[in-house]
C-alpha cells in the first residue's frame, strides 16, 4: 500500500493475515430465536420462567412486566434444526458465512446473558445439532461463526447464580464460589459491576486467571471446545471492554487451533484510532482482531442516502478506513447495513424525510436500499446480510428489528434485487480475487459518490447518485471493455460508455482488459 499515508499501527506482519474467506462470498447474520423453527420443534422443559410464543411472526413483547422489567423472555422457538432446514435457501442465496448471535444457554431470548458457556441453549437444540449444522453448512460451502460474549455473563448463570437455579455455588451466592474472582463486587452480593448498569449482565474480570483458563487456556476451554465442534471463528461482543491481555491471548488460542479461523470485533468507530478507557487500542496491530464490524460504513451510507452526508463525506469516511486500517483488514471488513442492534435498513430509509413527491415512502426507501446495497456489496470486505433484509423485513430498534423471518412475506422485488447483486458480485469474483481489486477513491460531489477497484485483469467502477441527475462516463483504457454492469434505479446509457444517473440510483461497471 504505497499510496497511502502510514497509519501508525504497529503490525505483526509475519502472522497477520485476515482469512481469505472474509474477502469473498457473503455473510448472513441470524438472530437464532427468530430465523427458523424446525418442523419437529417442541418446547423443552426448563426450570425458568419464560413465555413460549406460538404466533410465529407476532410482535415480540416490548413492554415492561408488572415489576417494570423488560425481560426479553418471550421465545418464538427458532432453533438450530430450523437453520439446518434453511441451509438450502442460504446456499442458494450465495451465503458463505453464517454469523449466529449467541446460542449458549441463557435466560433471555437474545442470549447475551450467558448461563453456560459450554451448552447450547435447550430451546435451540443440542451440541449434536450444532455439530451437524457446522458439518452440513460446510458441505454447502458455508462456515459458521459464533458470537463471543466474554465481557459479562448472565446473572442467572452457573457462574453468578443469582437466583440459585444452578446446582453449583455461584459468585453471587458465596465468596467461596470458585467463580467469585471472576466478578467485581463493590458491596457483596448486591452491588456488582455490570454492563451498562443492567443488573442481569454482571461484568467479568477478563484477566482473572481462572476465567482466562476457562475461556481460553484449558485443554477443553470454551473457545477450543466450540472450534472443535466446527465453528470457524468468533465475532467478539463489546471488544472495547475486553483488555489487551485477554485479546492477545484470545488470538493465540484461536489461531493455534485454526490459522484460518476469524476474529471479528464489535467496534462502532474507526477501530484503528479507537481509544477505550483512555487507552489507544491496538486491535488491528496483528495480535488481536482480523476484522471488525464496519459500523462507520453503515452510518455513512445511510447518512449519504438520507441526505445529511455528502458524497464527499461518505468517500472520506471510507478513505479514512482505507488509510488507517491494515490492508488485510480493509479487504476483510464485515460490511453491515443493519444488525440486531440497529433499526432495519429499510426502516431507516423509510422513516427518513423524503422530499420527492409523488412516490410512496416505501418506494423511495426501496430505491435507497437498492442504491445502498451496491456500495455495501462492492466496497472491499465481506457484505453481511442481517437476516430478512433480503426479503424486505422492516422494523425499528430492538426488539422490532428482531422479528420472525417469514419467507412467505418476501418482497419479490427486493429479494430479486439482492440476488442479482450477489450474482454480480460473484461474477466480479470470477474475474479476479476481490482482495486483489484495489480500492481507489474517485471524484465525488454533494450528490454523487463514486469509487473504483482496480486489478490486473479487471476493474470496477461504482457510482451512486442520491439526487438530481449525474453523468458518469466510463473511461476505458486501450483493450478494455465494459464486461457487465449492475443497475439500481434509473440509470440510462447516454451512449455506449456514458451512464446517466437519476436520484436514488446507482451503477456498478466491470471493465475487463481483454481483447474482444
Amino acid at each position, binding site marked *: 500500500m504505497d499510496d497511502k499515508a502510514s497509519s501508525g499501527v504497529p503490525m505483526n506482519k509475519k502472522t497477520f493475515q485476515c482469512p481469505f474467506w472474509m474477502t469473498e462470498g457473503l455473510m448472513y447474520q441470524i438472530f437464532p430465536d427468530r430465523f427458523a423453527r424446525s418442523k419437529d420443534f417442541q418446547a423443552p422443559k426448563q426450570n425458568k420462567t419464560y413465555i413460549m410464543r406460538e404466533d410465529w411472526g407476532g410482535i415480540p413483547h416490548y413492554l415492561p412486566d408488572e415489576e417494570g422489567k423488560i425481560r426479553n423472555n418471550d421465545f418464538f422457538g427458532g432453533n438450530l434444526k430450523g437453520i439446518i432446514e434453511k441451509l438450502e435457501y442460504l446456499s442458494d442465496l450465495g451465503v458463505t458465512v453464517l454469523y449466529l448471535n449467541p446460542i449458549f444457554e441463557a435466560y433471555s431470548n437474545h442470549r447475551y446473558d450467558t448461563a453456560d458457556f459450554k451448552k447450547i441453549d435447550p430451546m435451540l437444540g443440542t451440541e449434536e445439532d450444532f455439530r451437524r449444522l457446522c458439518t452440513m453448512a460446510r458441505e454447502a460451502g458455508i462456515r459458521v461463526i459464533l458470537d463471543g460474549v466474554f465481557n459479562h455473563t448472565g446473572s442467572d448463570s452457573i457462574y453468578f447464580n443469582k437466583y440459585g437455579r444452578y446446582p453449583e455455588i455461584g459468585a453471587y451466592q458465596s465468596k467461596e464460589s470458585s467463580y467469585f474472582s471472576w466478578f467485581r463486587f463493590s458491596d457483596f452480593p448486591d452491588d456488582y459491576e455490570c454492563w451498562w448498569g443492567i443488573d442481569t449482565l454482571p461484568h467479568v474480570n477478563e484477566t482473572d486467571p481462572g476465567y482466562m483458563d476457562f475461556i481460553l487456556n484449558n485443554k477443553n476451554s470454551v473457545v477450543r471446545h466450540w472450534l472443535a465442534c466446527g465453528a470457524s471463528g468468533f465475532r467478539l461482543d463489546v471488544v472495547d471492554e475486553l483488555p489487551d491481555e485477554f485479546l492477545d491471548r484470545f488470538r493465540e488460542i484461536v489461531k493455534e487451533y485454526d490459522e484460518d479461523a476469524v476474529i471479528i470485533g464489535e467496534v462502532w468507530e474507526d477501530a484503528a484510532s479507537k481509544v477505550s478507557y483512555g487507552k489507544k487500542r491496538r486491535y488491528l496491530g496483528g495480535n488481536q482482531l482480523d476484522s471488525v464490524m464496519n459500523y462507520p460504513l453503515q452510518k455513512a451510507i445511510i447518512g449519504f442516502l438520507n441526505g445529511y452526508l455528502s458524497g464527499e463525506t461518505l468517500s472520506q469516511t471510507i478513505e479514512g478506513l482505507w488509510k488507517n486500517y491494515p490492508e488485510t483488514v480493509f479487504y476483510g471488513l464485515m460490511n453491515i447495513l443493519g444488525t440486531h442492534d440497529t433499526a432495519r435498513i429499510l426502516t431507516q430509509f423509510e422513516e427518513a424525510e423524503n422530499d420527492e413527491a409523488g412516490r410512496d415512502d416505501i418506494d423511495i426507501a426501496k430505491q435507497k436500499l437498492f442504491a445502498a446495497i451496491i456500495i455495501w456489496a462492492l466496497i472491499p470486505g465481506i457484505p453481511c446480510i442481517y437476516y430478512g433484509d433480503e426479503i424486505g423485513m422492516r422494523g425499528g430498534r430492538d426488539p422490532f428489528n428482531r422479528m420472525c423471518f417469514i419467507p412467505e412475506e418476501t418482497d419479490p422485488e427486493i429479494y430479486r*434485487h439482492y*440476488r*442479482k447483486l450477489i450474482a454480480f458480485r460473484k461474477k466480479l469474483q470470477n474475474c479476479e480475487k476481490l482482495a486483489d481489486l484495489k480500492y481507489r477513491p474517485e471524484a465525488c460531489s454533494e450528490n454523487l459518490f463514486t469509487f473504483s477497484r482496480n486489478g490486473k485483469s479487471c476493474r470496477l467502477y461504482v457510482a451512486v447518485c442520491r439526487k438530481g441527475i449525474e453523468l458518469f462516463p466510463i473511461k476505458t483504457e486501450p483493450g478494455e471493455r*465494459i464486461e*457487465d454492469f*449492475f443497475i439500481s434505479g*434509473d440509470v440510462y446509457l447516454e451512449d*455506449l460508455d456514458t451512464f446517466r444517473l437519476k436520484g436514488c440510483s446507482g451503477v456498478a461497471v466491470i471493465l475487463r482488459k481483454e481483447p474482444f
Partner: protein
Amino acid sequence: MKPLCAGDVCTTEELSDHIRKKLLRHLGTDPDSANITELYKAVCLVVRDIMSELQMKTYDEGSAHRNKELYFLSMEFLPGPSLKNNLFNLGLENAMCDAVAEFGTNLNALYDMDPDAGLGNGGLGRLASCYLDAVATCGMAGHGMSICYEYGIFKQKIEEGWQKELADDWLDLGDVWLRSKEEEIKEVRFGGKLKEIWNEKGEMKLIHTDYTTVLAIPRDMLITGYGSNVINTLRLWESTSPVSIDMELFARGEYLKSMEQKHMAEIISKILYPEDAHREGKTLRIMQQYFFISASMQTIVDKHLSTFPNLNNFADKVAIHINDTHPTLAIPELMRIFIDEHNYAWDEAWEIVSSAISYTNHTIMPEALEVWPEDLFARFLPRLHTIVWEINRRLLQRLQSQYPYDDKLRNSMSIIYEEKIHMANLCVTAAHKVNGVSRLHSDIIRKKLFGGFAQMDPEKFTNVTNGIAYRRWLCQANPQLSEFIDELIGPAFHKNAEELEKLKDYKDNPAVLERLDNIKLYHKQNLTKFIKEHNGINVDPHSIFDVQVKRIHEYKRQLLNLLHIIHLYNGIIEYPQKEFQPRTFIFAGKAAAGYYFAKQVIRLAFHLSEAVNKDPLVKDRLKIVFLENYSVSQSEIIMPAAEVSEQISLAGKEASGTGNMKMMINGAVTIGTLDGANVEISQAVGNENIFLFGMNAEEAEALRNSGTYSPWSLYQNNADINRVIGFISGKINSENFSELLNYLTTGFNGDADPYFILADFESYKKTQQDISAAYSDRISWNRMSLQNIASAGIFSADRAVKEYAERIWMIKPLQVCL
C-alpha cells in the same frame, strides 16, 4: 306479410327491385341518378331486411328462452366490414353483384365503402366476433352484448415514424347496419345512497336513492352464419340521459351546467378505451362496464320473465359468458336483480347465477388483470359493492377452512384485498366453468394464476383453444385458394374445416403444389400493389413475404424481428456480394395511445424501412414495410399473401393468438416460439412444417427467477448482437433510438430486456437462416404450405364454439350444425 323473395334465395331481379324501392322510398332518391353512397345504403338496407325476415322466421321473439340461449358479454367486438360477410353467408354474393351492376356500379366499390366496425382493440374483440359468426353458423341462439361506441378503435396515421391517433367515426356509414329498439330501452343507475328498511317480520329491504339515471338504447346489429337460417343479434348499447336539459339551471343562465347531465350520460358510450392488455382503473371505464352490463342483465331477465313465471329455471335457459374480466359486473348485477327485485334468498340466487355464468380468461399478464380501487367502486356502485363484499366474505370463509395456514395464497385469491377489487377472482369464484384459450395457457391458469381455485374445484377448469371464422380469411379473402380447394376435395370444408385434412393427399402432387405457388404469387402481387399505393414502396413479389401483423406490444416482440432485420442488413453491408434470399418484411399494428415503448418500435420500423429500402447496396433484396391502420379489412389483404408468419412472443405470454391461425390457413409457414396456440399448431402440422425457436415457457420463467440474465453480456459475447446493438446506438435515418438501446441494456433497477429478446436472438437468427434455405427449395416449401392449410381445420371457430356449447354453455343448436 309478403315475403321479400319468392324462392329460398333472392334472385338478381328481386334484389334490384328492392334496391330501387329503397332508394326511392327510404332515401328519397331517383334510383337512376343515385350516387354511390346512396346506393351503398340502399344495398345494406336490403340485406338488413333479408336478415330481419330470416330472423323472424327462425327465431320467435315472443317465445324467448324456450330453448337455452347464450349471451356473450364482451367489452369489445371487432366485426370488421359486414356487407361482404353477410352476402357471403347468405349466399347472395353473385346475385347482388349482378343487381348492383344494373346501377352501374361494381359490388367491390361498395365493399370498399363498408366501414370497419372497430369496436375492439385486437385479438379479444375479433375473437368475440368470430364466435358470434360461428354460433350463428352452428344454428344456435346466441347474442353478443356490448357498447355502441361512437368512436371505435382509432385510425392510425404514421407521421415521420410517430403514430398519430385519429378518431374513427364509423357510425357515419356503419349506422345503416344498426336497428334501434326504442321499446327495449333500459335505465341504469349510478351512485346514490342505500337505506335499509325493516318490516315487522324482521325482513330487510334495501332502498337505493339519490342515484343518477342513464338510459341505455339498444342498437342491434344482425349476425349471420354461413349457410344457416339462424340470425342472431349483437346488441350494442348507446347511452343517453333521460333529461336533455335542466330547465331550472338554464333559466338561471347556467347554460353549460344545464346540459351537464346529458353530456355526462352520453360520454359513456362515446369512445372505446384504446388500450390492449393493459387496464387502468379509470372512472369512465367502470361506468362503461356497469352501463352495458346492467342494461344487458335487465334485458335477459325481462326476456326470461316474458316466457316464464319466475327465474327458477333461469340457468336452464340462459348461459351468460364473460369474455375476459370486463363484463364481471354481470355477477353482482344478477345477484342484485334476483335478491332486490325478485326476493330471492342469497343461496338460491347464488346457485342460479353461478350455474348461468362462465368465464374465459384471456391473459396472464399481471398488468392486464383488472383491479378496481374499492372506494371508487363503492362510490359508483354502492349496492354492487355490498354484494361483492358478501361474495368475498363467503369466499374467505371457505378459503379459511381450505387453506388455514397459507395467508399468502388466501390473500392472492381474495376478491377484495388491500382495498382493491380483483375482478378475475370474482369471476373464478362465481363462474361454474373457467377456461383458458390454448392448452398451454389453460395449464398456466390452472397451475399458477388460479392454482388455489383449481385445487378446490378442479372440475371448474377447462380449455377451449381459440378458433377463427376461417371462411372470412380463406373463402372470402382468398377465393382463388378456396376455389382450388373446392376442385381438389369438394366444398364440404366450407362447413367443416376438418375436411381440409384431405388436402394432404396432394402433398406430393407437383401440379397442385405449383398451383398453390401461383395463387400465393397472385396475392403477393396484390399486396405489392397495395403497398405501392399506400407506402410508395416497390417490393419484389418474388421475395419472401415475411409478415408480423398484430398489436404492438413488448411481449409480442416486434423488436426481435426488427433487430434481426438489422442483423441481415449488417450482413449485406459487410458482404454485399454474398448470395441473399430476398425478403420483404411486412409489419402492421396499432400501439395503445399511451404506450411509449410500442410507439418507439413503430418509429424504429419506419426509419429502418427508410434507411434500408433506399440503400443502394441492398439492391432491393431486403425491404421493410410498415402498413398503417391495421384493421380487419386490411388483414383480409395481407393474410392470403403471407408466406412466413411471425409468432415470436416470449413463451408463456401469449394466451393463444389467432393471427397465427389466419396465416396458417392461407398457407403461411410459422416461425414461432412454443407459446399460446403455436404449441398446438406445431402438433397439428408436425415439427417439420413449422420453424420453432427460443426458450419455452419454463425456461423463460427459470431465467427470470434466476436473476442472472444479463443482456449486456450477450452484447459483449455475441458478435452479431454486438453489431446490432451498436447499430441502434447510432443514428438510423438520422434518428436516435436510445430508448430502445436502454430498453435492451439498462432498464429501471436493471430490468433490461424484460422479454428476453437478446436471449432468444441467436436461436431466432439461426431459424431464420433455416427458413431462407428451405424457401429456395420451392417444392418442399409449397408442400409445407399445403400441410399448413390442411392442418388448420381444428383452428376453426365452429369447432371452438361447439366445444363451448357442449362443455360450458350446455346449449344445443336450434338447427343441427353440420
